[in-house]
């Protein structure tokens, strides 16, 4: 396998972007990445996208997006793993470059969610239709059950969940591309409307439009495009039971653990070596469970991480310095790439007010559904 580097990144703003269509969003991010690298071609394009078919009635994104950036003819296709589609697109690009099949690959993610579709219904397609969705459960409902299970097992409280949102909004307020650039207080979270008990509105990530793209090439060719490449040390993908009921413990995200173990092994590091991480906080409880599954905290201790300041900027392992899905926004197919971009910028000292000093190794973990799929990438400073 060849060593692979990320040499450039591009990202649209995240938010309710009424004036930008699916292809506009993609082109904004993709062209920014190519322009930064000074690249006039690519060998292949992977587009991570969860459900453009249901959100805006558009499938077949490979040729559409290649054409949108003036590269019609290039090898291109869509990659899907629900909300982990972006992470899986990065994995596909990584494998393609590492294998020697291509030298320059654009791995991107895009989602247009605010064009009138019933978002709750579309997102529910990431649950098990026969065992879950047909019975009426929605994603807030599934994560509410995970939260209840965690509360029962470890005494986690609504306030513990609120601290995750407060921390991520504090980070997101510093991110010019975030959907919600404002801080919130614990009381605001606890006063916000109930969505699915015990989850309140401010425990939940928003509905967003957005796109993100990174350009990958072999590490030994990276200097052609940038003087500060970031190495992709590892990629781990894992799956678990689609339905929550099929898992040994609903409060434990075993696919996340497996994807992390594979990534740690490939990188030759352990969780203690990670200095900055982006994890999949689609709901506040998800960040708590992901921290535990990634081994960044002891099992059952995830609920104290945000409250104690450990995962805040300045803490032992800053988590979701971008604002996370909660504050930065969650255009589902774009999220996995956007997470990798935050780590890329951190490792290039480009994160501005969000910069984690001297970070050399960072982790990005992207999750599909209620945790049935997970993709973990580890990036390292060169």
């Amino acid at each position, binding site marked *: 396998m060849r060593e692979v580097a990320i040499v450039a990144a591009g990202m649209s703003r995240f938010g*309710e972007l*009424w004036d930008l269509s699916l292809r506009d969003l993609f082109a904004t991010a993709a062209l920014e990445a190519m322009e930064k690298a000074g690249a006039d071609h690519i060998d292949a394009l992977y587009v991570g996208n969860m459900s453009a078919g249901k959100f805006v009635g558009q499938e077949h994104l490979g040729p559409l997006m290649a054409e949108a950036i003036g590269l019609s003819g290039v090898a291109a296709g869509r990659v899907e793993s629900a909300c982990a589609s972006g992470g899986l697109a990065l994995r596909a690009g990584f494998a393609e470059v590492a294998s020697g099949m291509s030298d320059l690959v654009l791995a991107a993610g895009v989602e247009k969610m*605010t064009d*009138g579709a019933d978002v709750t219904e579309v997102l529910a397609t990431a649950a098990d239709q026969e065992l879950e969705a047909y019975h009426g459960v929605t994603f807030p409902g599934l994560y509410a059950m995970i939260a209840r299970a965690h509360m029962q097992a470890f005494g986690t409280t609504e306030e513990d969940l609120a601290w995750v949102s407060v921390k991520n909004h504090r980070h997101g307020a510093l991110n010019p591309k975030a959907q919600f650039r404002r801080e919130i207080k614990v009381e605001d979270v606890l*006063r*916000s*409307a*109930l969505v699915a008990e015990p989850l309140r509105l401010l425990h939940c990530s928003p509905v967003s439009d957005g796109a993100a793209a990174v350009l990958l090439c072999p590490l030994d060719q990276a200097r052609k495009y940038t003087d500060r490449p970031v190495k992709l040390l590892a990629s781990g993908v894992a799956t678990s039971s689609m339905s929550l009921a099929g898992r040994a413990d609903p409060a434990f995200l075993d696919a996340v653990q497996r994807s992390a173990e594979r990534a740690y092994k490939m990188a030759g590091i352990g969780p203690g070596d990670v200095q900055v991480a982006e994890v999949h906080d689609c709901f506040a409880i998800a960040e708590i469970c992901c921290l535990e599954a990634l081994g960044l905290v002891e099992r059952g201790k995830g609920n104290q991480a945000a409250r104690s300041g450990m995962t805040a900027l300045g803490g032992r392992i800053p988590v979701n310095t971008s604002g996370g899905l909660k504050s930065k926004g969650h255009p589902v197919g774009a999220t996995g790439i956007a997470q990798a971009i935050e780590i890329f910028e951190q490792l290039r000292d480009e994160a501005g007010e969000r910069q984690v000093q001297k970070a050399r190794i960072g982790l990005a973990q992207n999750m599909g559904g209620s945790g049935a799929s997970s993709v973990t990438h580890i990036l390292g400073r060169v």
Partner: protein
Amino acid sequence: MAGIVGYGAYVPRNRIKTEEIARQWGKDPGTIRRGLLLEEKSVPGLDEDTITISVAAARDAIERAGIDPKKIGAVYIGSESHPYAVKPSGTVLIEALGIGPEVHVADFEFACKAGTEAMFVALGLVESGRVEYALGIGADTSQGAPNDALEFSASAGGAAYLFGTKDPLVEVLETFSYTSDTPDFWRREGEFYPRHGGRFTGEPAYFKHVLSATRGILGKSGLKPADFRFAVFHMPNGKFPLEAGRSLGFQKGQLETGWVVNTMGNTYSGSSPTGLAAILDVAEPGDKILLTSFGSGAGSDSFVLRATKLLVERRGRGRTVRSMLDGPRRYLTYGEYAKFREKIIVNE
């Protein structure tokens, strides 16, 4: 100069409180009251509809004008809730008020700006000399689906404006319209309740059109916000008109008189016209007034008005808006409200 020679408004006496609706759906009333600035809303009685509201408002308009209704050459009612899909509301109104039959009648529809649309056309006809007097009315028994955010605001009421060129109570100094294809809120034929694009109804719809129309009329008239004593903007909730006013440079004191939404609700086509009526109830001669409506779909009509001495003399001939908003009210339970709004399925 053409102007308003008579005006009138009507708000039904039934009310339902925000708390009562929120309780029904397990929502936090405090969040809605703080977020949308809505305390209660008017509800039509079982025997009230757009036509009865229009008749009640137009009767006061004719009374204040002191003219023979036979001289009215055009009648336009703008509404989202005309009782019939086919058959005009205006024909019932002219019979009730002794107008016509030598009169031009039409019903207008443009979501929440159908009322100012009727006013705009009525004004144009009297300005051109085509008719001596023309009546423009905005009235609604607004629809909002149960458990939709609209249910907290959709209410009943309206206002009528009689335009003419002799003895105006209020002069019309300028008008401006701003329209684009922006599908933020709609109801298809045969559907009971409108659908809407959530926050899309805000920035790209309400604010874009209200701010553009208002900036347009300020530019066209050479006036600035400080030149006005009063301003009223369409009131889909309590928050939007205050935000629009603030961002245009109007002060709270200029906005509060016409801001009737917190206890009236959103009377759709009747919203900004009723706010204007509340202003005319207290305006002094020479006061300049700005009115900007908004209708989804989307567009805004803007008017610059100036009160005359006659307004003060004549306004006592009709009811004030505040007398109806603050006067005798009947508070409904959600059950009574559901019955009045015919949300309960009963056998024929």
